[in-house]
């Protein structure tokens, strides 16, 4: 049986979180009610005209630079013509043979410790469509007898990033997306959330006998809403194609839909006519000829690449790679972390607090503002290091700061979170714990010293979390042994 090599290329769409849409002044991702962030331009009304958003252009250029692309000195918008009701003009303003960014690459660290360079064919600018809700209980397109359309999303700036077919496994594909996401995150250009659709990836996948050059027939897979589903879909498709090939069946060039629940890719009804997008230069938008000096300035201002940053965190601060990874994957975390270091915080403690407790608070309270600053992190870490507050107390202080933004010292003071290291005060609590837990005392004295942990816990509880646990244990032992 032949060995097969998998060939994968990825096309990722990134929604930019600019203030306004690509071609009009309507806000991006603003309105909760349907068809409220719309105007004659993004509704495609007769006579309306598109004017490109300069911030979106700046962002695609820095994305291109971060992916080591060449920024084209001359680039054009084209119209991609096809009819679909969620597209207000029935053409999409996109780019065709003259994209803004061409020929880059992304270096991706693989789990086996090697680094893979994935070529970037092009990165181009386009606009998003509206959202369609299908009017049936199942929500499935084919069952619905009507559809409802909301154009709030129509015209959102969309960056399409096309990779070369350099990816050889689902794991490499996952690693590529993670690295791409970290890169975009570091540039602060998009929310890059696959689950929410601000990062969307389609995959082209084919198999060929190992060691041969020509590509096999490729299949396009759509509708993968997470890195995990991307990897699952590719794994499924790999084995589907392998079985077909080994049965002597031909692979049909087609688009397949990933069905998350079924865990399978499914063929989409193919059109009788081949797509014919009738691209032509968008006459309403003059060419983009970015100034070389401007591009040079943007290049000089690029933030550190995620790989370099990750390496530096591990090398300079002794962070665990997995912690470094989490920091690098989230711009807010890495900025807080670095700023806290600048204020003298201990790196490992700061990293842990930022990636664990604070990240937890941010996830939970996604709609609440996060008022925690680097100053909070640095102060908190200093108090923990000096054992002035317990871990428990620090957690409370952080939660407080998250919503109030009050200085840490003030919170610790206000809530009495300083660790009780006063033997007298602790002694009273300990005496009470020993009186209330005669079985514990009995067990300890009969040699089951492990019960000390339970007793310390009771002391912590009795002190409202403010006891110094080390000191509590020492004092407990003194009394139990005494």
């Amino acid at each position: 049986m032949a060995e097969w090599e998998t060939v994968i290329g990825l096309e990722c769409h990134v929604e930019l979180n600019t203030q306004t849409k690509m071609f009009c002044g309507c806000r991006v991702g603003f309105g909760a009610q349907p068809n409220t962030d719309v105007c004659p331009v993004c509704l495609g009304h007769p006579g309306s005209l598109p004017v490109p958003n300069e911030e979106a252009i700046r962002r695609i250029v820095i994305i291109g630079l971060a992916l080591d692309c060449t920024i084209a000195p001359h680039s054009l918008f084209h119209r991609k013509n096809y009819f679909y009701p969620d597209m207000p003009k029935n053409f999409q303003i996109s780019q065709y043979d003259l994209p803004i960014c061409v020929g880059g690459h992304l270096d991706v660290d693989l789990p086996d410790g090697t680094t893979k360079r994935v070529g970037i064919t092009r990165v181009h600018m386009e606009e998003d469509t509206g959202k369609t809700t299908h009017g049936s209980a199942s929500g499935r397109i084919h069952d619905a007898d009507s559809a409802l359309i909301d154009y709030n999303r129509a015209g959102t700036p969309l960056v399409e990033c096309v990779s070369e077919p350099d990816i050889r496994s689902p794991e490499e594909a996952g690693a590529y997306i993670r690295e791409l996401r970290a890169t975009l995150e570091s540039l602060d250009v998009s929310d890059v959330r696959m689950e929410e659709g601000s990062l969307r990836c389609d995959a082209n996948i084919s198999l060929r006998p190992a060691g041969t050059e020509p590509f096999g027939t490729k299949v396009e897979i759509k509708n993968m809403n997470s890195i995990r589903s991307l990897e699952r879909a590719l794994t499924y498709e790999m084995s589907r194609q392998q079985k077909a090939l080994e049965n002597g069946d031909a692979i049909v060039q087609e688009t397949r839909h990933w069905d998350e629940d079924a865990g399978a890719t499914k063929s989409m009804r193919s059109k009788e006519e081949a797509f014919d997008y009738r691209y032509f230069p968008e006459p309403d938008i003059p060419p983009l000829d970015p100034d070389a000096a401007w591009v040079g300035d943007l290049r000089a201002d690029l933030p550190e690449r995620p790989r370099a940053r990750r390496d530096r965190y591990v090398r300079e601060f002794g962070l665990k790679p997995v912690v470094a990874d989490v920091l690098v994957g989230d711009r807010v975390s890495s900025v807080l972390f670095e700023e806290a270091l600048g204020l003298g915080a201990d790196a490992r403690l700061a990293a842990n607090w930022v990636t664990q407790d604070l990240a937890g608070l941010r996830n939970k309270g996604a709609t609440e503002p996060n008022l925690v600053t680097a100053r909070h992190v640095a102060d908190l870490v200093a108090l923990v290091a000096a054992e002035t507050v317990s871990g428990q107390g620090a957690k409370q202080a952080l939660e407080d700061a998250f919503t109030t933004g009050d200085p840490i010292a003030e919170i610790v003071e206000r809530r009495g979170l300083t660790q009780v290291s006063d033997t007298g005060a602790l002694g009273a609590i300990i005496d009470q714990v020993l009186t209330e837990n005669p079985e514990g005392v009995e067990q300890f004295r009969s040699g089951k010293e492990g019960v000390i942990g339970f007793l310390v816990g009771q002391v912590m509880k009795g002190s409202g979390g403010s006891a110094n646990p080390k000191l509590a244990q020492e004092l407990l032992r003194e009394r139990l042994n005494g």
Partner: protein
Amino acid sequence: MTDLCDRTGIELAGMLAAGEITAVELAESSLARVEAVDDRVGAFLTKTPQVALERAAELDAYLSTGAPQSSVAGIPLALKDVLTTNGIRTTAGSKMLETYVPPYDCTAWTRLSGAGSVLIGKTNCDEFAMGSSNENSAFGPVHNPWDLDAVPGGSSGGSAAAVAAGEAVWALGTDTGGSVRQPAALCGVVGLKPTYGLISRYGLIAFASSLDTVGTFTRSTRDAAALLSVLAGKDHRDATSVDTEPRDFTEGIDAGVQGLRVGVVSEGYGEGVHPDVAGSVRAAVERLSGLGAHVGEVSLPHTDYALSAYYLIAPSEASSNLARYDGVRFGYRAEGGTDVEDMMSRTRGAGFGPEVKRRIMLGTYSLSAGYYDAYYGQAQKVRTLIIGDYEAAFANYDVLVSPTSPTTAFKIGERADDLMAMYLSDVFTIPANLAGVPAISIPSGFDGTGLPIGLQFTAPVLGESTLFRAAHALETDLGLDLRPPLLAGV
């Protein structure tokens, strides 16, 4: 008898400023003319007397304070119905938009309105501005005030006829291949197509985006210059609008043609040009020479190919521009669609008229896989050659002269079955659109049956002042009486 509405805008602006007349009197004069003749002319699709009178009254109140006025303030204006007006139905002459009420104003009207212009209505036109006779309107033809059995030209036929018949003192149209200049010629008025992008296209319902321009219909060259002064200039809503400073285009208009280098386009006397038209243009050139212009002959060698290029580029862009009419967000929707694709196809099949469908098909085909290079791609190259023709000509001449249209107004229905003859009406006007250069048509005389003949001046990009200077000098020297017979009994 000459009514107020028969005077030029500049004259009326002077009378308003001097307090000799009120804006309400003027609006009433215009509205009365509409009442008197429009059932025969058919220039208007939507009349806005209420809006006009209210605006005029506001203006009179304002004028009485002695505040300075724009020269367009109070002057009755008509807008071609491809220019959007907030809250006022805008149809583009199509069943597709029969009930469409735009949620916004086009920039051209925003500017005029801001300067106190008085809108009396929206004018009939060929559907989506596609045509040269106004016979393609879904709402019936427009009749030429000079001969009610004849076409007014197109596609801005309603605007041209309205100005010729005194229903509006001036009007806006749009010109993609001659749609202002040709009807101006056929109706005996002045039609200006400015440099591409000089007037914002925002709110101009697109036909062919790279060729479309807003243009003016007036009864004098000076009026055209006055209107342009308000309309011209950068608009942040139109990325193709030209970045120019506001200016007064009436300045220097009286400078005359002494020393002006006038190139007579030799292709303007070719096959298909009516002898009366050729004769009128020759006579006008003689006059220019007599006025001190240096006259010579110049060739635009790719003129023949311009028509071919135009009939590829314009339909291609149109096929894309008109894709949005699908029955989803606005406009007509056909009944009985079984799925959305079927609904869209039925809507477009029933909502568009024959000429629009023809051009959509032509454009779709020209852009489709396998044909792009041979058609659209080649047409764009021809465009480069046309621009080269003009550059060569303007190296030696300040302004070019040719007929506007090969013939005068033809009878309604006469060319309905002869597409190529219809398309050839635009042979002299199309090259200016392809090159983006400004051109103006002014009346130069009459044919044997008394129908007006138009002469076209063309200038380099942003050479409007030269156009106005030449056109005004000739117009003054000719001193034609341009009152159509229709008005004899008014």
